[in-house]
């Protein structure tokens, strides 16, 4: 096993591990994979803004997980004697029209945000990946049909289609998630298809086919892993848009129903008091902004590391 020259190995607490990861002739596939991941991680860490994005997302996850422990007040205890109080020592972000502490509601609202994002990603990304790779690999009429369906869904502005779905299904956070997921998968299908078409004519695919690999194994084992990096970048960048769409639906009263502390709905109920007790509407918006920003920064950073040729959207 050859190693890079001693002066190029960074200092650290586990120099042995580091040397193993950065070896230029890895002994096993796992070592090569881990080594690559480590180098990608180093490159990612050089981008300060991307690290900020990652920090924000980690903050979101921890806040959601530890909500009952870090929120100063329960999210749903109205106290009409304290309604619409400004920011103060007792209530850092003030209280809303029912006297509930805004900070606590935002903290608990992070759970809803996370819930929405994760479910949408879990539904939309695999669907898009599947449709895209099948279309790209199969070609012919199947490709044409699948792409036509994708185009139809792309012909709807996302929010409007989500509105139409929610109008049929009724308001509620699960329906909002389904509606958003339905409008989110087309870009992933497009990306997966584009990558598949590029890859499917590659020599290594032909070699695998010569060895007897069937289409399922080729698509699942070879093509899908190669699509993953650009897909991950796109999903992360889309998260911000999904959060904004979910908040928009919440603002219109179509997402999580009261008294759930959904950030968009909080802005909507704070709207009446906008001119004088502006914090009721402003604070949840800042939360939405910070989380979206986090995903955008993270996505940009991931793109620089994983998929540098996909500049610009």
């Amino acid at each position, binding site marked *: 096993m050859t190693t890079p020259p001693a002066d190029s190995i960074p200092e650290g607490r586990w120099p042995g591990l580091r040397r193993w990861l950065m070896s230029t002739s890895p002994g096993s596939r796992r070592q090569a994979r881990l080594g690559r991941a480590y180098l990608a991680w180093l490159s990612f860490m050089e981008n300060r803004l991307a690290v900020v994005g990652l920090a924000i997302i980690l903050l979101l996850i921890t806040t959601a997980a530890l909500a009952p422990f870090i929120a100063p007040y329960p999210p749903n205890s109205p106290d009409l004697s304290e309604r619409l109080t400004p920011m103060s020592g007792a209530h850092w972000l003030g209280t809303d029209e029912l006297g509930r502490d805004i900070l606590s509601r935002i903290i608990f609202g992070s759970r809803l945000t996370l819930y929405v994002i994760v479910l949408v990603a879990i539904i939309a990304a695999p669907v898009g990946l599947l449709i895209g790779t099948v279309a790209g690999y199969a070609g012919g009429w199947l490709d044409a049909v699948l792409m036509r369906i994708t185009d139809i869904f792309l*012909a*709807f502005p996302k929010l409007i289609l989500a509105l139409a779905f929610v109008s*049929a299904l009724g308001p509620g956070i699960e329906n909002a998630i389904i509606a958003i997921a339905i409008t989110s998968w087309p870009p992933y299908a497009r990306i997966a298809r584009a990558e598949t078409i590029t890859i499917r004519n590659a020599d290594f695919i032909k070699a695998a086919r010569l060895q007897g690999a069937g289409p399922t194994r080729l698509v699942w084992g070879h093509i899908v892993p190669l699509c993953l990096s650009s897909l991950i970048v796109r999903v992360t960048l889309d998260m911000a848009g999904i959060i904004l769409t979910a908040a928009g639906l919440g603002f219109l009263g179509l997402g999580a129903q009261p008294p759930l502390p959904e950030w968009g709905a909080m802005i909507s109920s704070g709207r009446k008091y906008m001119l004088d007790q*502006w914090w009721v509407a402003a604070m949840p918006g800042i939360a939405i902004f910070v989380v979206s920003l986090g995903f*955008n920064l993270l996505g940009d950073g991931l793109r620089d590391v994983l998929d540098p040729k996909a500049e610009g959207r």
Partner: protein
Amino acid sequence: MGAGSQTSGRGRRLRRYGRKAAALIASVALTFLGLLFVTFLIGRVVPIDPVLAAVGDRAPAEVYERVRIELGLHLPLYQQFLIYIGKVLQGDLGRSVLTANAVTTDILRVFPATLELATVATLFGVLLGIPTGVLAAVHQGRWPDQVLRVVGLFGYSVPVFWLGLMGLLLFYGRLDWVPGPGRLDVFYEGLLPAKTGVILIDSALAGEWGIFRNALAHIVLPAAILGYYSLAYISRMTRSFMLEQLNQEYITTARVKGVSERSVIWRHALGNVSIPLVTVIALSYGNLLEGSVLTETVFAWPGLGFYLTQSLLSADMNAVLGGTIVVGTVFIGINMLSDALYRLMDPRAR
């Protein structure tokens, strides 16, 4: 480029264009049909009781019966779909529960307001976005570029309805620089006969400059808020395209010829950038139609977006689906237009 029979060459070219045009129309028609299919599904298949969804829960029994037969719910699904297509193509989008008017009439009344807002916002985005994008590309890495990066990040992270509220708070509530929500002060409402429905145009045509100024004052804030997103997107894409072009060899050729740097950037590079940029602008316009749903709600702007949300809250299914079809159709139309423009502008694509 040689000599040879001109007429047969031209005839062949015309036939080729004809075939391409036919393919394009077929493609668009298919997408439109798909659009109708999805709205049909949402209206008929998704709700438990589509008739109830169409007439509302306060309708009397005769109305319920009549609509049930009208919708043809006893017919097989594909026949219902064909009836549906026929109705839509004739402009019949059903009747609104809330206003009792034909949905089409309602939509025609409110659509110009959205058009006005989206157009002014896009203008804002284009006029400010393109120069800033160019500057960011030319001064890559330096402060104009960094500023653009921040502007872009904000544009992709801030919710439009929240920004609208904050804008109202600042410019209306605290600074009193702009008048309140709505398209005109109450004082002026109803004074102007609606010719196009676009107040800025109608008032200018009628010479009513007082109304024009008032309408302008009302549209400034919502258009600026909406336009900000357009600006963020357009400037970022302009920067990206510019950087790509400035690395090309023909730019070096232009410099070698002695073309001034200003001309190199604004004539040679931008000339090439404008082609993909047209598609970006069209897409941005489409995005703004979507963004206007929320902006109109915040500013009580009586356009299609406001109509949609009001219908939604009153469970007026026909109106919601009608609005969806209209917006979807406009989207398809914009994409088709931008495609055609691209073909016209790029000599390599003709």
